């Protein structure tokens, strides 16, 4: 276990646990204070979210600190569940059945197997190039031409978001950064912590001082105040975590700013898809949060950008 050899990593883990303990205490105080009906519902939802955060954070930290195999397995499972929620919502036709079987049982495991092999060249083009061609052909062979473009596009985008983008999180482990060897798990922590904290902070800022709606038709609860407050504080958190990364404090702040901005974009895009299909959440697996895809929507879009920025500037 790398956890006890790596002091900064141990600090990160203790930090997350401390944060969760504080959140649980605040949650129970709120729960005792509140009396009115509508506030009650909000507080109950907050407490359900905090409990779910415990489970998710512990799962992530155990998987990440145990090793590469468990990290990859965890995100394979995340992709699988996310893709399932995405496809459930997508208007697929019977002619897509075989292509979907391939997506779930061949493409998803294969993508993560490439992460395991650390075969960057194939990992980065499997889904955008080979799978996109193969699945379109497979659908064409099924013979149903109704809404053909729409259906193949949906299938392809589902794989891009739920599998390709998500696989960039454990792919961070394959980057060879001089002077940072065998410490990449902290990059994963940095990304996941900053993005998820930014979601929480946007929620907190929005609930406390939110006034001006950002995009009422897409995501009614998002406000400009929440967005700016959340992104700025998450950027500060990112800067404060520079010691756990190969970055200087300034670069850590910039990276945090980029990934939180990507996270906001991801949240909006995924909301747009949901609203377009007439639902509020992708699923009900995580109590208080909705589905897996509702939780990882910001991570999906932040991970590939974070990976490529780090790779471009830090891997020679």
């Amino acid at each position, binding site marked *: 276990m790398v956890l006890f050899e790596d002091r900064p990593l141990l600090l990160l883990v203790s930090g997350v646990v401390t944060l969760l303990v504080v959140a649980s205490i605040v949650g129970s105080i709120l729960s005792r204070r509140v009396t009115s009906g509508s506030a009650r519902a909000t507080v109950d939802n907050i407490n359900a979210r905090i409990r779910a955060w415990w489970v998710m954070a512990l799962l992530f930290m155990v998987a990440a600190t145990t090793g590469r195999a468990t990290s990859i397995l965890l995100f394979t499972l995340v992709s*699988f569940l996310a893709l*399932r*929620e995405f*496809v*459930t919502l997508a208007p*697929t036709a*019977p002619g897509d*059945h*075989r292509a*979907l*079987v391939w997506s*779930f*049982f061949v493409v998803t495991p294969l993508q993560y197997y490439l992460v395991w092999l650390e075969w960057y060249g194939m990992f980065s083009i499997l889904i955008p190039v080979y799978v996109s061609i193969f699945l379109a052909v497979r659908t064409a062979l099924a013979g149903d031409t109704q809404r053909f473009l729409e259906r193949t596009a949906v299938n392809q985008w589902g794989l891009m978001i739920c599998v390709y983008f998500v696989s960039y999180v454990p792919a961070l482990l394959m980057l060879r950064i001089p002077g940072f060897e065998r410490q990449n798990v902290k990059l994963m922590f940095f990304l996941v912590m900053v993005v998820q904290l930014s979601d929480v902070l946007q929620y907190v800022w929005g609930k406390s001082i939110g006034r001006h709606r950002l995009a009422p038709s897409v995501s009614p609860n998002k406000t400009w105040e929440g967005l700016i407050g959340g992104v700025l504080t998450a950027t500060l958190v990112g800067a404060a975590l520079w010691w756990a990364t190969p970055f200087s404090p300034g670069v850590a702040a910039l990276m945090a700013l980029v990934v939180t901005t990507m996270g906001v974009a991801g949240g909006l895009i995924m909301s747009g898809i949901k609203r377009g299909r007439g639902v509020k959440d992708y*699923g*009900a697996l995580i109590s208080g949060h909705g589905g897996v895809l509702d939780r990882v929507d910001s991570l999906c879009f932040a991970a590939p950008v974070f990976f490529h920025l780090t790779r471009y500037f830090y891997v020679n």
Partner: protein
Amino acid sequence: MIATALAAVSRLIAGPTVEWLCDPSSEAQRIYFGNHSSHLDFIVIWSALPPRLRRRTRPVAGRDYWDRGTVRRYVSSRVFRAVLIERGQAAGHNGLVAARESIQRMSDEMGDRDSLIVFPEGTRSPTGEVATFKSGLFHLSRLRPDAELIPVHLENLNRVLPKGEALPVPMLSRVVFGPRLEMPAGEDKQAFLTRARAALVELKAV
């Protein structure tokens, strides 16, 4: 044991959300009637029941399919104690007699303890649309007025494992157990079947 394992696998594949509009743990004998679009339908309904009630809830299935081959025969007769009936009989008088016999068998097999799961459309719908009901449900309900008729709506299973496909796509599905269907005395067959189908379709909007 095998049944529980199969139920767990089906839950993993079909990820059903279950909703009850009637008492889930009622001890009453019941006839659950569902819309049929996939081979998974029965097992998904069955695994949504409280474990205590599963052992006494039996599917009604076509003999032509489920009495063929060792595995199918074992699963249908031993694991789920299915009531196997003849399907697609000849038209006319002989067909009518055979159909009556099947209904009588279902009623006998229920005894004073078991519940049944039936699919009154008679076959799987390829689109997920609910087809018109065959008359079996009507005759069964007349034979067993003591049993509660419970409509069960299944959503998305035709996308998980459509007719003619061997491998499932693991999508999320939904099972809604509706309120008990009343049986006013003197209602004729057609009116009953239309009402039963409507009660089932209605659950889609729940």
